[in-house]
Structure formats: structure tokens, C-alpha cells
């Protein structure tokens, strides 16, 4: 029940992207509200940037508005929502006909403020060839945006073993 009650935006975009699309194209505040209402952690951080002038890392007022302004000026509120609709259809198909296991090397970083902290054995269960796993000290759902330095370090470490051809 709790899982169901947390996913209003996913459900709306997954089922009826056109309906919410009218809001996202016609009302700037409708668009901004919809985009801010993603997860509790990033919402609190972005709210603090606007209300208290205390941004968290790269989640500043200007960079948050850069992103919202891009959605507005390109009029992509409906078309981006349609990706959720496609994902919903894809998930149903994958349930009936699961895709093959990933054989390539996979790396994964858990950020402490993400929606959930995936334990290593969950990641290993989903990706058998896990070559890198780390728990970062800071960052949430928008990790690259919020903590670009930490995020870059994660990329360097995650792909280090794949730099030379002899790794393959």
C-alpha cells in the first residue's frame, strides 16, 4: 500500500502522459511543481535553495531553473512523460518475456540520499558481472548534479578496470 501511495507522478505519466502534458505545456508553475515533486530528499534540498538560500552542492536556484526552463522552452513536458508510458508497456512485455542476462561488466554506486540504498547483493542479483560497487559519502537522486566531484571520482574508479583492452 505504501509503495502504491508514493507513486502518483509515475502512475499518471505511465498511464496518461497526454493528460498531464496539458499542464506541463501551458503552466510554468504547473511544470515547475511537477518537476520539483520527485523524491523527498531532492525536494527538501531544492526547497532550501529557494526558501533559505542554502543550496546543497550543485542544486542551486540557477541550475534548477536552467533545467526547468529547458523543459519549458522546448515544450517537452508531454513528450518526456510519454517515456514513462513506453516504460510501462515495456515492463509488461519484459515480465512475459524476460531479456537475457547482462554479460558485460557493470559498476554501481549507491548514493546515501537516493530513493533507496541498494545493497551489494541486490545489485549482484540483477547484474551478475558486477566489477565495482561503492557507497558514496554524499549525494542523492541527482548525484552528478549535486556532487559532480564525487560523481566523477566514482566514474574513474568504476571504469578503471576497463581502460586497457586486456581487461576484456
Amino acid at each position, binding site marked *: *500500500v505504501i509503495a*502504491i*501511495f*508514493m*507513486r*502518483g*507522478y509515475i*502512475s*499518471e*505519466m*505511465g*498511464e*496518461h*502522459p*497526454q*493528460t*498531464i*502534458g*496539458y*499542464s*506541463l*505545456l*501551458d*503552466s510554468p*508553475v*504547473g*511544470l*515547475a*511543481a*511537477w518537476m520539483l*515533486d520527485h523524491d523527498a530528499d531532492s525536494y527538501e534540498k531544492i526547497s532550501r535553495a529557494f526558501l533559505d538560500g542554502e543550496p546543497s552542492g550543485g542544486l542551486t536556484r540557477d541550475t534548477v531553473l536552467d533545467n526547468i526552463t529547458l523543459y519549458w522552452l522546448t*515544450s517537452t*513536458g*508531454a*513528450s518526456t512523460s*510519454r517515456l514513462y*508510458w513506453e516504460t510501462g508497456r515495456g515492463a509488461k512485455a519484459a515480465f512475459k518475456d524476460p531479456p537475457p542476462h547482462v554479460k558485460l561488466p557493470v559498476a554501481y554506486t549507491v548514493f546515501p540520499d537516493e530513493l533507496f540504498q541498494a545493497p551489494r547483493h541486490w545489485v549482484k542479483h540483477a547484474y551478475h558481472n558486477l566489477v565495482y560497487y561503492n557507497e558514496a559519502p554524499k549525494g542523492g537522486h541527482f548525484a552528478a548534479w549535486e556532487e559532480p566531484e564525487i560523481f566523477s571520482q566514482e566514474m574513474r574508479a568504476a571504469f578503471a578496470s576497463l581502460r586497457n583492452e586486456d581487461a576484456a
Partner: protein
Amino acid sequence: MSAAVDSRTEIRSFQVDIPEANIDDLRRRIATTRWPSKELVDDRSQGVQLATLKALADYWATEYDFGRLNERLNSLPQFTAEIDGVNVHFIQVRSQHEDALPLIMTHGWPGSVVELLDVIGPLTDPTAHGGKAEEAFHVVLPSLPGYGLSSEPAEVGWYTGRVARAWAELMHRLGYARYVAQGGDQGAAVTDDLAHQGPDGLVGVHMNLLRAALGNTSNLPSQTEEEKAALEEIGTFRTSGFGYFLEQSTRPQTIGYALLDSPVALAAWMLDHDTDSYYKIAGAFVDGQPTGGLTRDRVLDNITLYWLTATGASAARSYWEGGQAAARAVRKTPPAVTIPVGFTTFPGEIFRAPRSWVETLYPTLVYFNEAERGGHFAAWEEPQLFAEELRAAFKPVRNGRSS
């Protein structure tokens, strides 16, 4: 100034007054709408279709007569009463037949008193609408708190059970010692709560949505074809038409910004309720083929009322209250309903509740019928048929025959 009037119990006469500037602003916003591209499918499966909404917006801005909402409401006796901190707006039409049965009817979302206006005549004046004098009702139609012309709750806690208590207080203040209640959608939830509370004076209820089954079907029989079909219909609704429900239940404020700022966003959100009513309303705008009372003008009367009263967010909050109340009610059994219950299943409703389900939830069921026509907005779509259902459903409780 009368010092004897107590503002806590006073009932005031009310008239709608829509400032022209608000209508000009609405027209301007519709004219400057930024439209998304057309949906990528040929049906409702991605939501409200562009052609439907463009036809609606065009009619709304250029042909719709904004004076008609004023006229329809102000031609009826309207009142307000402050109850439990909310200024409740209601229409009260007394039948010319003195011994008529008092009836309080509750609208739903995305409805308002507008969806019930056309049943007033058949209910209060049956002899002019194919009925008998002894089938008359005195009708009370309140606007839910946060909806239409009632004020918004200024605090959390206005779930349907609290609305039900306010309705009982309203009927008490109006001097109705013996009355019945009716509702569909959110109105069915209010009416169900009223039935469980069993206030003094309430002698029967009728509903046209089995609210409890939308949340939980585990205690309902699932053997017959009808029962299996109803389960499948609920499953379809919960997996393909449930986004608005979840958004309003969890984030009414978030969707509220668009509903107050964009007329087409509001119209789209309100049209996207259920498959049956969507296609009927789309047919009215796109093909000029309305189904019963779901005409372009009447549909826009309702949307315009939401816009002009700026109640998109406050109405959505009633779903949030419903979610909170449902969470509190887990593993608690409400007091049993002991008064007679009537129920009508309409064929276009989200699911066609079988008699076995209604009997399971209401052992005191005295009337059950499957109507020939009508959907989620049954009173709006088929007012004459709806009135006939209420005459039949409440027959057993007329004249104190039931106790």
C-alpha cells in the same frame, strides 16, 4: 442588525455573482494556450486526446455562454450555513407536496452541484415528470467542503466521515426530523459514512457507487460471471486509469498549481475520469453527439464552476483526506449499517457492482436494480431514469413504514 441571530447556526440566502473580469481572464488564458503535440495513439490510452480538448477549448472561449451558470444556479434557492468551521453552500428545493420525503444528495469529483441540477425537477415535482405526488422529495444539494461555492477547509481532517457529520447537522438545522441520503462517487463515500454513523433522523440511503469495493475486493464473492466481470473492471481501472486518483491522494498541492493556472489543464484533468464518461463527453465536443445530459454546455458549466471558484487544489485534497482516513481505518470495523439501503448499478460505471457484493457490504439492502442506461455521472446523464430509481429505492421507507 439583529442581535438575536447566532452566526454559528444562521442560514443565509445566497446568490452567485461572477465578476466579468474573471471571465475575460479565463477567455484570454484559453486563447493563449500552449498545446502539447498530439498523442501517439488513436484512443484514450495516453490520456485526454488533443482533438477533444481543442474542440472543448474552442467552444469554451468562443460559443459558451458564461451567463448560463449564474442563471442556472440563481434560479434555485441557494443558502450558506457555517458548520464546523466551513461555510457550506447548498441548494434547497422544497416540493409543493408537503409530506414529501427530505433527501440530501451529495455530488462527487470531478463533479459539483451542477451534476445534480437536472434531477431536482423530477424529484421535487414528480407529477410533472411521470411520477406520483406521493413519490415527491424535498431536495437538499450541498457543495462538498473545498468544492464549488462552499468554502475550503482551513485545516486537515475533512474526510468524508466529517462531511457526513456536517450533513447530519445541516439536516437537523433545516428541521428535517426524518430524511434519506443519496450519493455516487465521493458522494457515495459521504453517504456510506452517514449510513454507518446512523444519525437521528436518517431512515435510509441510496448509492450508485460501491465505494468499498474500489479499495478492497478480498471479502467479496468472485464466482459468478458478473462477479468476475466486476473484478476485471476494477483491475482495469486500477492499472490504466488510476493516476489521477493516486496523484490527488498523495500530492493534491502539486497538481493544484496547474489546475488553478491553466484552464486546459483543469479541463483535461476533469475529463480524464473514467473511460465511459470520457468517450461520451468527447463525443459531445468532437462529433456534436452528446449522451443524455452530458452536453457541451453542461460539461462546461461544471468545469467553469471549478475554474471561477479556483477549487482545483481544494477539491483534490478530499482524495488526500480519503487516503489518510483509509490508512486510519485499516483493521477497524465501522459500526454496522442498520437502516435500509438501496443501490442502483449503472452499466457505464467504472465497475458494475453485482447484487451479491452490495448484499455482502450492506445486509440491510432493500432495493437493488441494474439500470438500462447511464454511467459514472448517472444523475447528470440520465436525470429522469435516475429520479425513477430514487422513487423506487426509497419507497420502502416512506411514511414511516420502516423503523
